[in-house]
């Protein structure tokens, strides 16, 4: 199996000496090229799980393996994309995209050409000399996407990447991410609390519930691409997910989308 999460738990020591469990024995197997959405309300451990797969954090118990290798630290094989983009404001779009290539020792000209290729892929060629502060949120996230893709990672880990965008921009970015995923054949783990977003993007949706963060169920989305957000099949799956969450009771659900 490409990614194998075995009994992964993560608990934190609090100031008063108590332990809180953010993630409780999660098991998950992900195939290469799969698009997985981790869906759940805040506090369900979806970001914790993503951080552990990225190697920013270690599980208290259990393990993560990618292609049989245990994950112990961050790697260019697994690039994370954040809600706040993580772009360097003092660098132009082009130099933000070359950032990841600089550590690989690629020469300046080759890395610039490669960066330009990816900037074109996300449709920002005419903005390559701009600084991030001059771009809209959606455009900044495209830059982050180009930067991630430029180092050719096997896995993209997206932590609510569209969370800061307005509804219309969100949908066009969902289209964009799907297009790029299909073109570049990446494995994507995508954290979201937006049910429609998950149904639109995912091959499989991992439904998580909070306190402690657990996987409640994994749901296949057997719809053909490109999905129609208003089709009856789409709405049916959406309704199933609504039901799955209602199962848990209202107290755990701090907002309904």
């Amino acid at each position, binding site marked *: 199996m490409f990614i194998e999460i075995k009994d992964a738990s993560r608990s934190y020591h609090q100031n008063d000496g108590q332990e809180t469990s953010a993630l409780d024995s999660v098991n998950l197997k992900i195939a290469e090229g799969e698009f997985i959405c981790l869906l759940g309300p805040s506090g369900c451990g979806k970001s914790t799980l993503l951080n552990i797969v*990225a190697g*920013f954090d270690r599980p208290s118990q259990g393990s993560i393996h990618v292609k049989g290798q245990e994950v112990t*630290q*961050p*790697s*260019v094989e*697994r*690039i*994370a994309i*954040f809600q*706040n983009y*993580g772009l*360097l*404001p*003092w*660098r*132009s779009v082009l130099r933000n995209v070359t*950032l*990841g290539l*600089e*550590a*690989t020792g690629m020469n300046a000209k080759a890395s610039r050409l490669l960066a330009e290729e990816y900037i074109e892929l996300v449709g920002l060629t005419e903005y390559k000399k701009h*600084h*991030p*502060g*001059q*771009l*809209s*949120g959606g455009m900044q996230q495209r830059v982050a996407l180009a930067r991630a893709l430029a*180092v050719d990672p096997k896995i993209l880990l997206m932590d609510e990447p569209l969370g800061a965008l307005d509804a219309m921009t969100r949908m066009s970015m969902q289209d964009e991410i799907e297009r790029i995923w299909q073109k570049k054949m990446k494995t994507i783990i995508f954290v979201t609390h937006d049910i429609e977003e998950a149904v639109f993007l995912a091959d499989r949706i991992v439904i998580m519930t909070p306190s402690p963060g657990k996987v409640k169920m994994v749901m296949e989305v057997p719809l053909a691409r490109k999905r129609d957000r208003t089709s009856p099949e789409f709405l049916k799956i959406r309704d199933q997910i609504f039901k799955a969450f209602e199962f848990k009771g209202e107290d755990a659900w701090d907002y309904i989308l």
Partner: protein
Amino acid sequence: MKNVKQFIRAVISLSILIGVWWAIAASGRFEPSLLPSPWKVWQGMFEMIKDGTLWTHVWISLGRFFAGYLAAAVSGIVLGLIFGWYKKVWAFVDPIVQVLRPVSPIAWFPFIILWFGIGNAPAVVIIFTAAFYPILLSTVAGVNRVDALYLKVAANFGIRQPQLLYKIILPAAFPMIMNGLHMAIGSAWVFLVAGEMVGAQSGLGYLIIDSRNALRSDLVLAGIIFIGISGYFIDRLVRLIERIIEKQWGILSEGGRT
């Protein structure tokens, strides 16, 4: 338009100041040697400009100033980056800095003379001491405040030390560092004059002491005015450089879309 208005306001307020000064001097209550009239001072300034002594002193002062300031900027930033990153080292250095920082550079003067002799060195060392602490402390604070997200991104892309320091940490801390550089300009210029008053045989500070010894109160006041004007232009220059760098580094958020 805004600049013109600002300029007019500056002219008006300075004219009022000179007018009041003139009126007090003309009232005859004070001896001319205690309060020279604006005209007398202007003559003194003109005299110094004409015979070239002013430029000699100004250039000497500026030379010392930039030597001391640049040395403080380079060492303050380099040490600040290192101490800011290695927090355990800073925990040991911080108490020493906290004790040394409040000491006026002038208090070191007896030792500075003994260790560095006379001439340019004492004034340069005083400037260095005055500029060093604000730059060091703001650099350390800037490094401590670097957004954790940048460090995460750097770790993800495999950027390690020493690249991490100059590619991520230095630019991220830069706005704070610039702040320290700006504060240091002010205190360094103040102490330059003080330093030249006790140890030097040239420079604007010396000019004042020398004029006092010659009982030329008009030249004392002329010297004070020159110090003020030079300080003003240095501050403007730094602001200009700040602007250029901010623009280059994309720190300016003006005109940004959301």
